[in-house]
């Protein structure tokens, strides 16, 4: 059983469209991270959210942490081809851990 469920697994859209990626769990997390990974490279940290209900914006990307700290979403406005990549969420269980839990990722392709 995957502790962090990401949806959708795959997303193929046209440039200019909006999209939302979800990261859900039945467990509570003390913090949650979003990463973007391009082919042949390592994941790059986009954001960390730590407070229930928190919303963070990074240019056209909006990240939200659920009130109960069990889920998170990533919304991209007016997607661009440069947004193409694998988006991964990762969470740290409450009580703290040296080992994050990763979702399986959402593979996004933005066509020009």
């Amino acid at each position, binding site marked *: 059983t995957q502790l962090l469920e990401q949806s959708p697994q795959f997303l193929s859209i046209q440039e200019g469209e909006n999209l939302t990626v979800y990261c859900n769990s039945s467990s509570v997390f*003390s*913090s949650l*991270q979003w*990463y973007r990974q391009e*082919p*042949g*490279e*390592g*994941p*790059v*940290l986009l954001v*960390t959210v730590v407070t229930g209900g928190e919303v963070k914006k990074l240019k056209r990307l909006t990240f939200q942490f659920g009130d109960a700290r069990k889920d998170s979403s990533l919304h991209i406005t007016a997607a661009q081809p440069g947004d193409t990549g*694998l988006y*991964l969420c*990762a969470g*740290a269980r409450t009580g*703290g*851990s*040296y*080992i*994050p839990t*990763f*979702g*399986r*990722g959402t*593979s996004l392709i933005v066509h020009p």
Partner: protein
Amino acid sequence: SQTIHQWPATLVQPVGSPLSLECTVEGTSNPNLYWYRQAAGRGLQLLFYSVGIGQISSEVPQNLSASRPQDRQFILSSKKLLLSDSGFYLCAWSVLAKSQPQHFGDGTRLSIL
């Protein structure tokens, strides 16, 4: 600033040969260090992590081993590679504290023939 170096970038090895992948971190002390394997375009499988020199925890029983001979050096090894060891291997570090985000190297693409 902190940097992480991982090499080689690509490696082609025959079945049964040994393996040594190296990862070093600069600009920080006492980091947590991690080795992951990633299937094509999918999530990460944690293989090993270390919270200090000589301290290695294994998450998945397998044909691989890890060592941390120095504070900022993490090595992934195998005595005899299997076909199933093919994959994309990622090294990562985080601050030595719980619930911290990770910072990844650029990965090694390992192909076993």
